[in-house]
């Protein structure tokens, strides 16, 4: 039984409940990224963090999306590092707006980048470098309001470029399609910056659709190795209302609905109580299936 051998003693504790994983690895004040670019957004894990009432998180994410709108609205965060804070194709993030514009439920600091810069900052973090270089930010205003953007000069051509501080995380949280018995994780489809987030993090939690004996995929697939992963939690549907390529589609209707729910503080709180605080990770499967592949 090769897979048993591979598992090893330390890997055994790795397969655990989402509740246990969040309790062990997500601490108040942590710098944490719940990543996933439209695809594979780890909503179930974020909801668990909300239930466990985490505070003063520094939340990093290219696209805060509904997942951080919810965490911010519930008072989990005191800073957001981001590059596009919209409800894609629909509008704004009303809870994040309320925090930035009116300090509700608490004051929220922001560190704002462009996508190119933040993606590069993740790469630098994953690569053990303190900064990244990009051909960007020329003649625009963000460098005036973000001190984590500096000028740097090419030692060969003297050309001026932008440098950004690397992303370094206490914890990366992602959702993926599959883990194998040894605790390696397969991500397929839109890959976002998930590999970079895990490599840039001290610890990582991965929720997965399922555990399989073996990945049946390309030799060049995007696989995260078991020694970079601290907890694997089986949460089918755990990316809903985002989606999991080959498992279920994006629930666009929920994204539209969110625009209404999030406009009003009380309506938002009521929704969160019903759908998050009083719920468990087990609800995600039915939510995802409800709208899966019905086109």
């Amino acid at each position, binding site marked *: 039984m090769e897979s048993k051998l591979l598992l090893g003693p330390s890997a055994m504790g790795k397969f655990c409940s989402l509740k246990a994983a969040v309790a062990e690895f997500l601490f108040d004040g942590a710098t944490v990224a719940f990543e996933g670019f439209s*695809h594979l957004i780890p909503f179930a894990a974020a909801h668990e963090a909300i239930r466990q009432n985490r505070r003063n998180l520094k939340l990093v994410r290219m696209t805060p999306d509904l997942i951080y709108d919810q965490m911010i609205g519930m008072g989990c965060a005191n800073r957001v590092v981001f590059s596009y804070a919209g409800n894609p194709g629909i509008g704004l993030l009303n809870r994040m707006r309320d925090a930035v514009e009116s300090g509700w439920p608490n004051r929220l600091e922001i560190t704002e980048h462009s996508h190119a810069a933040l993606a590069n900052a993740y790469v630098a973090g994953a690569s053990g470098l303190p900064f990244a270089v990009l051909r960007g930010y020329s003649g625009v205003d963000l460098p005036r309001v973000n001190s984590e953007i500096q000028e740097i000069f090419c030692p060969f051509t003297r050309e001026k470029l932008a440098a950004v501080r690397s992303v370094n995380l206490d914890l990366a949280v992602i959702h993926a399609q599959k883990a194998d018995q040894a605790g390696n994780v397969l991500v397929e489809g839109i890959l976002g*910056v998930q590999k970079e987030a895990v490599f840039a993090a001290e610890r990582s939690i991965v929720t997965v659709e399922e555990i399989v004996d073996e990945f049946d995929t390309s030799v060049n697939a995007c696989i995260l190795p078991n020694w970079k992963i601290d907890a694997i939690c089986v949460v089918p549907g755990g990316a809903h209302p985002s989606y999991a390529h080959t498992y279920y589609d994006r629930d666009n209707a929920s994204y539209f609905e969110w625009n209404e729910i999030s406009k009003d503080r009380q309506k938002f709180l009521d929704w969160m109580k019903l759908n998050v605080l009083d719920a468990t990770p087990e609800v995600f499967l039915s939510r995802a299936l409800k709208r899966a592949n019905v086109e």
Partner: protein
Amino acid sequence: MTGYTPIEMMTVAASRSLAEGDVCFAGVGPPSEACNLARAVHAPDLVLIYESGAVRARPRNLPLSVGDGELCETALCTVSVPEMFCYWLQGGHIDIGVLSAAQIDRFGNINTTIIGDYHAPKVRLPGGGGAPEIATSCDRIHLIVRQSRRSFRKELDFRTSFGFGEGGLSRSEAGILTAGPVVLFTDLAIWKPDPASKELTVVSLHPGVTRAQMHASVDWNIKFAEQVEITEPPSDEELTVLRELHKRTKASHFPKKI
């Protein structure tokens, strides 16, 4: 076809500017709509690149987000987001970036970040996303923005992405070697930069649009080209395909529940 809306005119006009074989970086919303209309009507080999990493995506519906599953499923391949921004975009391998904006100024600089003061905002907009580097790394930029006094501003509240800066040689002086916004499509007109001053100049009015309407919807003193054309109205085919696209898209956003 009897009628069409100004927004339909805008999308159709923008779609016509994209040609077979162009490699386009398509932002979500109107840009993606114009790109997919072009692909459906006259440029089936238009190559659409989305910042989510989808290369040569061929969605049947308009994606709601740039990371929709259909983009990946119909793509030639899907790369990681850092690879997309480093190798594909910054590497200089994209012909046209199609962008929209919340505010635009006469030199094609755009704001998608904030209304009001950055540190005490009136409205916190989504921010730059891919736009700041799309605006400087693509060979050229096509803009699509609805005209209104709120959005066509003499002074931007925040410069998110660079157009021609203060005009003239600002762009090359900022070290940017690409062409920048070569055309702007609105619901009323088509604008192109003056070759020397780089001020966006009205080169075509959509059918029925008056100069008074133009002045009323822009916060600065507009320049018109010496010869202002009248935009060819949407053809039956263009309108039919566009409306079909929207219908299919809406159906896909609200699928029947099981």
